[in-house]
């Protein structure tokens, strides 16, 4: 009940916003294609990511969701065989331009992975890692502050405040994932990419992360890959449906889930796919 009303409210808000000129496009993909060696995994994807909204990428396994997500902060550069074509912009700047520094880009577009991957360091050092690399905190007290606020934003602080110096790998799966979110937030990114962030979590931890995503939307732009239709419906304002490397359709979440244009979307959402 509660969720429904909230969602109705959100969709009302987004409906009102869509089409209005002050809705800002944070990132824009233009004819994005990706090759792994000879094999093309993504074809001509045109997709906009709007500021301070959650964009969900859905679609059957292997359709290229992760591939597209990884293009947005050029993580595909780390795969030797991968090659990206087309154009992707962040604030109207081409991120594949020669003048763009990948390191800087990734500080602006952070990433949370499918499997929680805390470093084998203390909880504190995990969160402090990014700020330290980018020199965001000069003094120890500044760093303490950054770590604390990041952990608070990730909803983890109360659980770990007495054991900040213990290894991050000793946390539970759900806590580890929130630690990774805190780690991503700590560098103050503008966009946060999340690849199935809840797939390794139980329902309670999932609910916490979903809540968190909703709160983070105030300050960040979020792109999330998910296999859970309920999750997409609950947390996102916009949804993009992928199939076999193509973008099938994209639109306001509410509309996608009630009245999609494409039959494949309809089938996938209702679980009648393939």
């Amino acid at each position, binding site marked *: 009940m509660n969720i429904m009303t909230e969602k109705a409210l959100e969709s009302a808000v987004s409906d009102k916003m869509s089409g209005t000129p002050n809705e800002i496009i944070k990132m824009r993909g233009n004819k994005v294609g990706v090759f792994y060696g000879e094999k093309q995994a993504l074809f001509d994807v045109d997709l906009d990511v709007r500021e301070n909204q959650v964009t969900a990428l859905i679609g059957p396994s292997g359709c290229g969701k992760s591939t597209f997500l990884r293009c947005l*902060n050029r*993580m595909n550069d*780390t795969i*030797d065989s991968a090659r990206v074509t087309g154009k992707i912009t962040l604030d109207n700047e081409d991120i594949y331009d020669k003048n763009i520094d990948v*390191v*800087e*880009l*990734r*500080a*602006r577009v*952070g*990433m949370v*992975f499918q*499997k929680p*991957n*805390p*470093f*084998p*360091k203390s909880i504190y050092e995990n969160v402090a*890692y*990014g700020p330290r*690399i*980018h020199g965001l905190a000069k003094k120890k007290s500044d760093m303490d502050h950054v770590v604390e606020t990041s952990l608070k934003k990730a909803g983890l602080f109360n659980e770990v405040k007495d054991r900040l110096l213990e*290894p991050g*790998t000793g946390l539970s799966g759900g806590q580890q994932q929130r630690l*990774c979110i805190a*780690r*991503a937030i700590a*560098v103050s990114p503008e966009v946060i990419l999340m690849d199935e962030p809840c797939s390794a979590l139980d329902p309670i931890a999932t609910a916490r992360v979903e809540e968190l995503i909703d709160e983070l939307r105030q300050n960040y732009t979020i792109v999330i890959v998910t296999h859970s239709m309920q999750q997409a419906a609950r947390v996102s304002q916009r949804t993009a449906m992928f199939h076999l490397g193509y973008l099938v359709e994209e639109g306001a979440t509410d509309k996608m889930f009630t009245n999609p244009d494409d039959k494949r979307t309809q089938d996938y959402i209702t679980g009648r796919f393939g």
Partner: protein
Amino acid sequence: MSLMLVFALVFVIGAVAFFIGRQRAAAHDNGKVKPHSRAHYHGWWAFLLATLPALLLLAIWSIGSSVYLNSHINGQLPAQTAESAIASRTLAASLTKSLANGLRKLEPEAANNLPATFTELQPMLAARGVALAPDTQDYMIPIAVDANRTQDTMQLIGGVLVLALAVAGAVFGLSKIKVRARARNNVERLILWGLLGASTIAILTTVGIVLSMLFQSINFFERVPFFSFFFGTVWDPRFAAAGAGESAGQFGLIPLLAGTLYIALVAMLVAVPVGLMSAVYMAEYASPKVRAVVKPALELLAGIPTIVYGIFALVTLGPFLRDLSAALAGGTSFIQAQSILTAGLVMGVMLIPVVSSLSDDIITAVPRAMRDGSLGLGATRSETIRKVILPAALPGIVGAILLTASRAIGETMIVVLAAGVAANLTLNPFEAMTTITVKIVNQLTGDLEFNSPQTLVAFALGITLFFLTLIMNIFALYIVRKYREQYE
């Protein structure tokens, strides 16, 4: 019946048992009851029952009959007389045995009418390519002939017994085949025992080596005090004085230990940084194509025998460093042709592939998720390596370095050729020094009696070295174990 033939026949019986067993078990499977084990397990079990006990008996019989034959020959030898041409009874027995072996090479017809004296027999045997000691005596000929005859009977009886046992085993195994018989478990258990046996061999050998060295070392410490060996600073074994009694020489371990550690240290100073950096390059930066060439090339380097490195040090690097130092100092060279530096450098080069290939495996074992996590936060590659990958891989790398260090400590040939054999105690890396292993070789290659301290010291040195490397290896394993799960 020759050993080989019996052996082959046992296997033939085993093979037959296997096929019959498999077929029978398959025939038993009528589809009503689910068989416990698949048909080939029954076959294998029948095979093992047929072959293993039979082979065991064969082994026991062979050993037993050769013992029996020995005492048989011994009993027939005439009593030792003072004027006997041969020093001892054991020697006479072994001469008889080689004579008996030689007789087997003769044609049957020649063997049937043997000459009575060895002087006549010798050319006949020599024509068949058998060379015998000249002090073989005439009286040995009938004994040898008799020994051969006894041996033949023994082999025949043994062969028949073994084959009978093989057949019995096969029949027994085949009779046990039922639908629910647990052949699979039996086979698996035997495999387990086989594997266990294989690993025990390595352990037992180690224990044997340690014990044999330990006894000789105790022997040594009865002659030379414990304290003056472990804390002595002078190495002067006085080969010339060996056996002369009062002055046994000085056996101070310190110069050798110092040399060993010093040369190993120089080697590690070369090998660790270079090896680590090349490992990082290969694991993190090299494209698959480069990696496919560089990694095998480096590993090839690890396969070069150390003596080749030693020769390089002796004829090329050593003289080069000496001449270089002479040129630098204007005339007098301050680096000797054989020096710690030369040995350390060459040994270091030898160890580079060891360090790099071990570390490369360890670095690539760090999960990709760690790299992605760091790169995804906007860290550069080198930051990722320094701050995430190397710390995560550190325990493994430390383990690899310690393993390498024990190789450096155990190395001999390079040191002999590059640093010499003089047991000095010095801190100057440009002078010659030597190591424990070199001295072990040195002490054992003289033609001294085996119970002089000059020789026995080699065992004391050996056991010291053994414990030195053992402790390092245990420490390495401990570190690797302790921190291994960290990123999992």
